[in-house]
């Protein structure tokens, strides 16, 4: 599960060290046996097939892989899966309810907060963390909270508007 293919030297030890971990992902307790070197981003994408979490730069620059770890936004390409053992992870798949979009997702749709969409999951998770802590942010506060997430398409203006839209919708609910 941890790698599809791995060439080994003829004399290599037959067993790769592994650890069993249990992570609560989007509210559901899930267990897996992983190599300690597996990154959290890869556990989510290749392990649990939650491909909404994108890996953009793999060097913790771009923020496309942002998820919430115990409610705090982190870049999942910079954490090992074993470091999430016993913790709570929320990915972009955890945003929407069974029948309707989350207000943040709706905001990105209404305000055209995405073009290619690659950065969008990270943008949304960073926005979620911001709105959880600060339900009525100013434009500057939104730009500050999203400054670790890069977008190459939108110029950010519509992303900021999308978060403002979501904040208003959440306030009205």
């Amino acid at each position, binding site marked *: 599960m941890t790698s599809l293919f791995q060439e080994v030297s003829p004399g290599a030890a037959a067993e790769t060290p592994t650890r069993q971990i249990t992570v609560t992902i989007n509210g559901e307790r899930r267990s897996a046996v992983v190599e300690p070197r597996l990154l959290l981003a890869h556990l989510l994408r290749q392990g649990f097939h939650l491909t909404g979490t994108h890996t953009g730069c793999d060097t*913790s620059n771009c923020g496309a892989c942002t998820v919430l770890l115990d409610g*705090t936004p*982190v870049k999942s390409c910079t954490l090992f899966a*074993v*470091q999430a053992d016993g913790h709570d992870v929320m990915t972009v798949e955890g945003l929407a309810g069974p029948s309707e979009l989350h207000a943040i997702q709706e905001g990105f749709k209404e305000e055209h907060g995405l073009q290619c969409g690659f950065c969008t999951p990270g943008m949304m998770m960073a926005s979620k963390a911001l709105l959880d802590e600060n339900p009525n942010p100013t434009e500057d506060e939104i730009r500050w909270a999203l400054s670790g997430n890069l977008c190459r398409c939108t110029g950010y203006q519509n992303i900021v508007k999308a978060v403002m839209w979501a904040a208003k919708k959440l306030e009205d609910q």
Partner: protein
Amino acid sequence: MIKLRFASPEMLVDINEIPDLDYHRVDADGSIHVGALCRHADLERSSLLATRQPTMAAAAPLVADPIVRNRGTLVGSLCHADPQGDWASVMVSLDASVVAQGRNGRRTIPVRELVRGPFQTNLAYDEIVVEAIAPAPMGEAAGGYLKLERRVGDYATVGVAVSIDRTGDEITRAGIGLSGVGGSTISADDAVQVLVGSSLTADVIAEAASLAAQAAQPRTDHRGSASYKRQLVSVFTSRILTRLIRSEEEAA
């Protein structure tokens, strides 16, 4: 280090689950202690730093980006020994030290002696840094940190940390640390000598800024020319110090 492909260790030990290392606190003697698991975000929101340690308080919101600050630590930054790192120049300007712990007990290492070269420290293979200590100010602490970066989260083109302690208008202790303008963090000692014993007049600030720029060893790269970076060191040093000049009402 692994992401940069600078290291491929066979074994990693994760210290994140070790309890009681996430503190930052002020001791009875006025020194500030930062545990190895205290995150940048904790320091950014710290009322303790806001009231007691202006150079650290100024730097905390400029480290990396808000999401990285949720995981990264001051001690980790010091041990990473990146010549462009923010905390190293701040802690050099404060004459700070780190406490290393290994099998043979603890030892204290001044931050300016911790680094052996880019991404290399003088820690033994079986030692970790458990805390960083900024000594108590000799008088009232003042200072600041300024950095030019192309965008949030990029490496510093130039970072300048200035810390002064003063009694009345007289500067009793000073420190200036420079990031991104040499193979390791630079302590601008000649500029510091001009400051100690003086007060912040325009002449003193101009001379300190000039000497700080001379201490820099910048290289021309895609972030700017060497002369541009040297000029920035002068401008930042001068700007931080000028902001610390007290108006007559404040001094009275």
